[in-house]
């Protein structure tokens, strides 16, 4: 028995030790792309799958850089900051990747950023919109120049969102008073600051009160009662954690007050199922291309491929970062072809010059290009080096808008309701709310 026990223990040790060299052989004549992000989240999977579809297309077309095949290696971050750093180190040191595509959330990207500057690997972020990272390029371009972000920064998102407040909430709906329903997170605090200090004053909307709730809240009825009693014209919801809970209770309780705001769970096609069909009437800001966003013909081809390949697995429809990963990979390799590889001196300027205009019905619909160092954005009067070239001034003919507002209707459809150029539906209050 004793010897059996020893055998088991030695086997356990040997199993771990025996894995030392496993899995590290790779073909010599390949270009390696590293994916960093969460394998379990819808956002992470969207980036991973978007990148994989682009890579498959490039390989099928004969390869890149003189016929080399592209191989994607993946490193899971579990949405954990330290795991993100380890994942970046793994891709850089063990796998020796040439380029990294990221579907990481804000703090995970910020975590591995120092490693990126150390390894100097060209890296494209497709999900985080943290202006703090772009600010690092503003302050120290040479150190961070290998970094690109092809989603509009949160500041650009906010600026266009103020327009929605003015045009729709104040002007069209005639709302003058709001009550903020905010989750108790830093994200909630940040968006609250934006609403109270920017959106509300510019749109002429008075913020009567803020109700802060815990993210573990399961019964929102007393909170909604307080909101209704406040005398507000509408509720401004700020929710990112388990936000399908507050949405579905709003619908089930038929709260007699309109509600809009930022609702992260409503960004994905799975929202309707996640709320058990009780998600109608909810609207939220979303980066583009969003749920309900009409795709241009080229992006539609990508969507069709995505659905054919992954339509039975969550997420069944790519999130915005899936599109970003698909086009981002194409642009990164187009730049590499021009530069003869991923050497920073030539690749960075080549990537800065990438410009993909996606047209629909003869109009500019989406644009994948980057703000160049020193180039000033007209409206905010600041620079956004290596951020996607967004356009926050109607008629949005210089780039894609930084965001759209989408609304889920009571029949389960999701449509874009703002800005008008991209709108496929009207902003509505739910049927149980008095107009």
């Amino acid at each position, binding site marked *: 028995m004793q010897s059996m026990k020893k055998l088991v223990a030695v086997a356990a040790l040997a199993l771990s030790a025996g894995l030392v060299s496993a899995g590290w052989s790779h073909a010599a004549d390949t270009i390696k792309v590293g994916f960093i992000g969460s394998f379990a989240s819808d956002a992470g999977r969207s980036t991973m799958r978007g990148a994989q579809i682009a890579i498959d297309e490039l390989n099928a077309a004969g390869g890149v850089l003189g016929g080399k095949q592209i191989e994607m290696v993946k490193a*899971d971050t579990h949405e954990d*900051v330290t795991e993100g750093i380890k994942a970046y180190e793994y891709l850089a040191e063990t796998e020796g990747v040439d380029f990294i595509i990221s579907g990481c959330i804000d703090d995970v990207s*910020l975590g591995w*950023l*120092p490693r990126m500057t150390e390894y100097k690997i060209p890296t494209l972020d497709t999900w985080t919109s943290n202006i703090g990272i772009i600010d690092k390029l503003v302050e120290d371009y040479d150190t961070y120049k290998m970094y690109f972000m092809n989603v509009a920064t949160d500041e650009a998102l906010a600026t266009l969102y103020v327009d929605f407040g003015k045009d729709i909430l104040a002007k069209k709906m005639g709302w003058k008073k709001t009550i903020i329903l905010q989750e108790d997170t830093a994200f909630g605090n940040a968006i609250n600051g934006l609403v109270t200090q920017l959106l509300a004053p510019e749109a002429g909307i008075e913020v009567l009160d803020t109700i802060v709730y815990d993210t573990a809240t399961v019964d929102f009825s007393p909170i909604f009662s307080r909101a209704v009693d406040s005398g507000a014209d509408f509720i401004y919801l700020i929710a990112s954690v388990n936000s399908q809970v507050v949405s579905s209770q709003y619908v089930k309780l038929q709260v007699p007050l309109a509600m809009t705001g930022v609702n992260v769970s409503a960004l994905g096609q799975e929202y309707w199922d996640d709320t058990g069909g009780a998600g109608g009437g909810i609207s939220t800001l979303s980066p583009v291309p969003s749920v309900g966003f009409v795709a241009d013909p080229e992006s539609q081809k990508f969507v069709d491929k995505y659905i054919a390949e992954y339509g039975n697995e969550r997420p069944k429809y790519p999130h915005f970062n899936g599109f970003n990963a698909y086009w981002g990979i194409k642009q990164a390799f187009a730049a590499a072809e021009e530069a003869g590889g991923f050497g920073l001196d030539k690749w960075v300027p080549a990537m800065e010059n990438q410009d993909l205009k996606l047209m629909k019905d003869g109009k500019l619909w989406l644009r994948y290009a980057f703000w160049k160092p020193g180039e000033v954005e007209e409206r905010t009067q600041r620079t956004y080096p290596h951020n996607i070239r967004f356009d926050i001034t109607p008629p949005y003919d210089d780039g894609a808008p930084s965001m759209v507002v989408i609304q889920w209707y009571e029949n389960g459809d999701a449509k874009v309701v703002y800005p008008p150029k991209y709108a496929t539906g009207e902003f509505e209050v739910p049927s149980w709310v008095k107009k």
Partner: protein
Amino acid sequence: MKGIMTPRHVALWIAFAAIMLLLPQVVSNGTLRIIIFANFLAIFAMSWDFLSGKTGYVSFGHPFLIGIGAYTTAILSYRFHMPIEYSIPIAVLTTIAGGTFFFLPALRIKGTYFALVTLAFMELIYQLTQVIRPDLTGGTRGISGVKTLLVGAVPNYYFSFLLMLGIALVLWVLARTRLGTALDAIAMNEEAVSGSGLSTTKLKLFAFMVSAAVAGIGGAFYVHYLGSIAPRALFDIDFVFTIIVSALIGGASTIVGPMLGAFFMTFLLEYLRPLLPGSERYLIYGLVALVLYVYQPKGIYAIIADLRDGMRSKNANNSKNSGKVGDGKAA
């Protein structure tokens, strides 16, 4: 030192150091990066072991101490541009002060209650870093771009190893003094120690301060290795479990055991990455840890000791047998 460190111990420590110092000549930079994380985890696990393994006051909130060290130096160096040579010692002193708060509950409660209170400490600092002065702490997003001490896998490997080795030696020696024995006795029967005339309050305070100092040193250098800090990376239940499991799998109350456990757990997880890049590797990781723990609850340290004792008795038997055979022949 006589009796604490025998020539055999000296030889073993020197051999260990020599092997580790030669490692960069034979392994890849990727492996060195893994060892760097193992070195820091070993520091945290030894810090936990000196407090919880020795005295039996199980801490579930050790990241509270590590976080104080890490955040203090990160804020001072990044926000106030204080040189690292000042910010790190201040961070360690601040952590020791924080250790006093950690110690206060131990004056009145122990066991599960103490563990829960320490968990509350961690939750408290997690919330504080996000809400109180996010302009300093960076809120949920933390701080990115904290000055790193060294660049590259090899220099960081040498530095982290020497730091870990120094801490291990100090704690190992301390654990083998009469003070260490008294701390072990607290874990067994605190009332008996008190009854023998020793001040358990002073003894526990000593253990808490030493543990806090090590956590502070580890946390401060850790953040200057990572170059970034975020509350979710530190004040997280997974991080607590990794520290505790490393100590238990390695062998609690032995100092060397947590070091072995940290290396084992880090390597196991990282070497599974190419084969199982997703969450599946955590299943294997858990299973291997479980098998080891079921086989020998006293950890890897005890398994090695068992093997050593087995070999010794086998050699002794062989000598006896060969002696008997010789005698027989002679007869």
